C-alpha cells in the first residue's frame, strides 16, 4: 500500500497523474486501463478542489493506492464540504448537443472508466472516495 498527500490545487494534478500512472503500471494494467485510471483520478481530484474545497489551496488530498490480487483500490480523502454525487445530475449523452447539461461529466467519466465508485462522508474524517479497477483475467 502506498499513501501520498498532495496540496488541493490544480497544479498538483500533474504530480498526482504521474503517481497514479506509476502505481497502475506497476500493478500490470495495459495502457488503455492505465489511461482510464489516470482520467478517473484526475476527475476525482478536480471535483474535490471544485466542489468539496470550493477553491484551491484550502486543504489536502490524501491518496492511498492498494494493489489486491485482482484489482487496484484507490482511496481519496479530503476535509472539504460533504460531496453528494446525487446532487449532480447525470449527463444524458444522447440528448441534443445544444441542450446537453455540462455538469456531472467528471462523475460520468469516473463511473464509466472504473468498476466501482463509492462516495462516503463522515463528520470526523471528511469525504472518502473509493475507486476500484479490476484486472482483466
Amino acid at each position, binding site marked *: 500500500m502506498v499513501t501520498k498527500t498532495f496540496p488541493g490545487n*490544480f*497544479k498538483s*494534478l*500533474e504530480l498526482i*497523474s504521474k503517481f497514479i500512472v506509476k502505481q497502475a503500471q506497476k500493478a500490470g494494467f495495459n*495502457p*488503455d486501463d492505465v*489511461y482510464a485510471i*489516470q*482520467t478517473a483520478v*484526475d*476527475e476525482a481530484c*478536480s471535483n474535490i*478542489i*471544485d466542489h468539496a474545497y470550493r477553491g484551491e489551496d484550502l486543504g489536502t488530498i490524501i491518496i492511498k493506492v492498494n494493489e489486491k490480487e485482482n484489482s487496484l483500490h484507490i482511496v481519496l480523502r479530503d476535509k472539504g464540504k460533504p460531496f453528494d454525487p446525487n446532487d449532480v445530475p447525470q*449527463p444524458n*449523452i*444522447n440528448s441534443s*448537443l*445544444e441542450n*446537453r447539461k*455540462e455538469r456531472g*461529466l*467528471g462523475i*460520468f*467519466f469516473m463511473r*464509466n*472508466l472504473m468498476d466501482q465508485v463509492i462516495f462516503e462522508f463522515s463528520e470526523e474524517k471528511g469525504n472518502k472516495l473509493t475507486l476500484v479497477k479490476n484486472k482483466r483475467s
Partner: protein
Amino acid sequence: MEIIIKEHQNCNSIKITGRIDSYTTPKIKQALQTLIDDDHHNLVLDLSDVNFLSSTGILMFVNIQKQLLKNKIGKIVFSEVPDLVYANIKLSGFQQLFEFVDNTTAAIDRF
C-alpha cells in the same frame, strides 16, 4: 503545457503539447479566445503531442465550438488526436460536434 500558434492563409493552427487538465485549460481557453476576438475563427487544433485530456478540457473546446458554430463564423477542426485522448472525447459524447483529421497539413488545407 505549451501552445504554439501559426497563422496560415485561411486559418490558424494551434499545437498543444502536454496535459489539458483543470490547471492548463484556462490558459488554452484564453489563447483561443484571444484568436477569436482577433477575428481568427478557423482553428486547427493539433493534439499530436497531448498526453492527457480531462472533461474540463473537453467542455472548454465544446463551448468554443458552440460559440463559433452558432455565429456561423468558423470552427475548430482537430488533427492528429492520439487514440487514448480521442477515447475520452468519444466517452463524453461530444465527438459529433467536431471534425477529426489524421494529418495537420491536410486539416489546414481544408480551409
